[in-house]
């Protein structure tokens, strides 16, 4: 008789894998990638390819030459970091800056902590914020969206709705006057505005969210709590002084809120483990984002907000536990 395999239960597995989840997120990013290619053309191609290839290369090289351990580049996480990094930067950014940003994202953001699963901060955001602080000029030149764009470095640039708003308000203009200069909400929803390569089309990003929710890659807790918090906070500000503060719809459809709430904050490794913790984390991100946008120096604050809340995750996980069975004895009569 052939020998039997003996191992403890359970003897079956769901078939889920790290790879499936990582590639699932990549698939969810495809609509946004399509929107990016549509509006930024050649620039989007160059930026995306550079970021993905360099992130995968750096992970491979660090594992091969420094850590000397088994390569994990096929699990899709490095490619995903590259894709997210590309989505968070302008599509006319020079290649050499992207390569440096990728090295920081993978090298410092991820591998220095021990690789996938150990990084306390979202690696793509570590890379992005590093570039934003080191190359502030290049990082804030945004190409204007235009169909079939064949320019890369020489693309015509313009300000993003968020910076137009910030400058306008600083110059004493009223919100409604500034809004007249901006694309309509419909245009913003479909992505026809300046911004980072992958953040502009809320519609495409929401399609990605729907896909991830259906595939159960993520749960609704983090995106919903961020979006609701931002809407509520900016809504209150707007109601208190409509001329001084832009409305919630403006804040949700501009900048990186959708990309951040759906794809950056939901990064498995750097977000909390319990549902209650996820909501606290999301609310924190929402509040910090609005504070930076409305009262801070930068027009956009979601990257900083996510990184700051990443720092709180160990604390949240220590004190916020999932709801336990039997903790609340239901007294309902049978």
């Amino acid at each position: 008789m052939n020998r039997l395999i003996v191992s403890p239960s359970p003897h079956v597995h769901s078939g889920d894998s790290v790879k499936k989840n990582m590639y699932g997120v990549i698939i969810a990013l495809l609509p946004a990638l399509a929107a990016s290619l549509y509006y930024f053309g050649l620039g989007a191609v160059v930026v995306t390819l550079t970021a993905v290839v360099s992130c995968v290369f750096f992970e491979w090289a660090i594992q091969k030459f420094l850590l000397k351990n088994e390569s994990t580049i096929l699990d899709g996480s490095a490619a995903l970091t590259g894709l997210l990094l590309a989505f968070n930067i302008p599509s006319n950014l020079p290649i050499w800056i992207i390569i440096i940003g990728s090295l920081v994202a993978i090298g410092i953001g991820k591998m220095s902590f021990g690789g996938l699963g150990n990084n306390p901060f979202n690696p793509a955001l570590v890379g992005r914020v590093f570039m934003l602080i080191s190359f502030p000029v290049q990082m804030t030149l945004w190409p204007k969206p235009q169909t079939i764009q064949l320019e890369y470095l020489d693309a015509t640039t313009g300000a993003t709705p968020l910076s137009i708003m910030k400058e306008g308000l600083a110059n004493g203009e009223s919100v409604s006057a500034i809004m007249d200069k901006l694309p309509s909400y419909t245009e913003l929803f479909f992505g026809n505005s300046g911004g980072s390569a992958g953040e502009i089309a809320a519609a495409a990003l929401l399609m990605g969210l729907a896909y991830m929710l259906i595939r159960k890659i993520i749960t609704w807790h983090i995106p919903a709590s961020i979006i609701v918090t931002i809407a509520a906070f900016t809504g209150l500000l707007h109601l208190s002084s409509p001329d001084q503060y832009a409305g919630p719809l403006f804040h949700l459809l501009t900048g990186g809120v959708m990309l951040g709430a759906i794809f950056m904050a939901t990064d498995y490794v750097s977000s909390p483990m319990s549902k209650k913790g996820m909501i606290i984390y999301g609310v924190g991100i929402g509040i910090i984002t609005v504070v930076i946008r409305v009262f801070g120096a930068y027009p956009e604050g979601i990257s900083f907000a996510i990184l700051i809340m990443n720092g709180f995750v160990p604390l949240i996980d220590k004190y916020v536990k999932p709801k336990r069975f039997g903790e609340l004895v239901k007294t309902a009569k049978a």
Partner: protein
Amino acid sequence: MLKTFSLGGVHPAENKFSAGQKIAVLPVPEQVSVPIAQHIGAPSEPIVKKGDEVKVGQLIAKSSGFVSANIHSPVSGKVFKIDDILDASGYKRKAIIIKTEGDEWDASIDRSEDLKTEITASPEEIIKKIGDAGIVGLGGATFPAHVKLSVPPGKTCEVLILNGVECEPYLTADHQLMIEKGDEIMVGTQILMKALKVDRAIIGIENNKPDAIKQMSELAKNYAGISIQPLKVQYPQGGEKQLIDACIGRQIPSGKLPIEVGAVVQNIGTTLAVYEAVQKNKPLFERVVTVTGKSVTKPSNFMARIGTPMNQLIEAAGGLPQDTGKVIGGGPMMGKALVSTEVPITKGSSGILIMPKEIAKRAKMEACIRCSKCVSVCPMGLSPYLLMTVSDKAVWDRAEEEKIMDCIECGSCSFTCPANRPLLDYIRLGKGKVGQIMRSRTK
């Protein structure tokens, strides 16, 4: 409306290949090996010796404590020897080995097929009879049934809940019993209700057994106080705590028993055994065993005598397939992998599951990506990822604080983990250690 339990849960592929297969009576084996430790609690004490003649249903080992159970001879013949044999646990343990001669039943057993609905025994007599008959939880937990029915002073039972969930994939023994022995189960339920002095019983059945739900609902009309609760298909709904939560919406507090919320749970197979013991004077010496698997030629439900070697059941189901990698006693989620197919079936053997090689091996473990899926699926609301880490690092006080002892070992975490981490293996290790520490403290 379909009910289910409130926290976590998974839905593994059901693969109920043997569903609808009539329970076939397996021929009496030439020799049986009856282990004396088939239940939770103290092993029974053999009262026969080598060379003794025994009849079917004769007491051969008696209960040796409050939590223990009697064992009866499944065959008639001569005690060949009492020796250590390999059993389903993978260890060598003491068993009574009997060589079969004929099939002569103890004269007191009523072998007729007639349904006997009138319950003459008093509650005390019922509990005593159940204890005498050696009935244990037949769902797999094998907790002596009479102990569960003895409600401790100061507590009252309000409702009896019957487990017809059979949430383990592949297994169909209870399903088939409900189809074929519905009336007997109903009478068994009434006996249990009488013993517990309750006027209400709920039979929880998952929605993947619509025929059983329909039939039992029809039958329940003739029996006062019994209702059927259809449940959404969700593993581990057959867990006692989960089933009570699903049926009556009450949660047992950490470390407490079902009676704390006024409920007692019994399994369908157990209920049939209760009927047979009380109404027909038949002790527990045979049970229904599902033999199944993807490559098994004839997935079947057998009525087999306790102590029958498993390979005889496997032969009857078409033999061990060529591609066999693993043989499991029980279901795929909580069953135990067997080291040999020669081990005997016991009171807790709900099924024999044969897994092909390609799915028998675990996939390679990767780093935890903190996806939190283990937390989402845990039906007890624990944090399996954390329990694995603290067990690995031997931080036992933290493991206790994180309620490692609440784990019901359902395996939903390991089943779900995308990184194939053996969460439950580590949690079991931690439970063992923490349990030891807690016991030493109370001494």
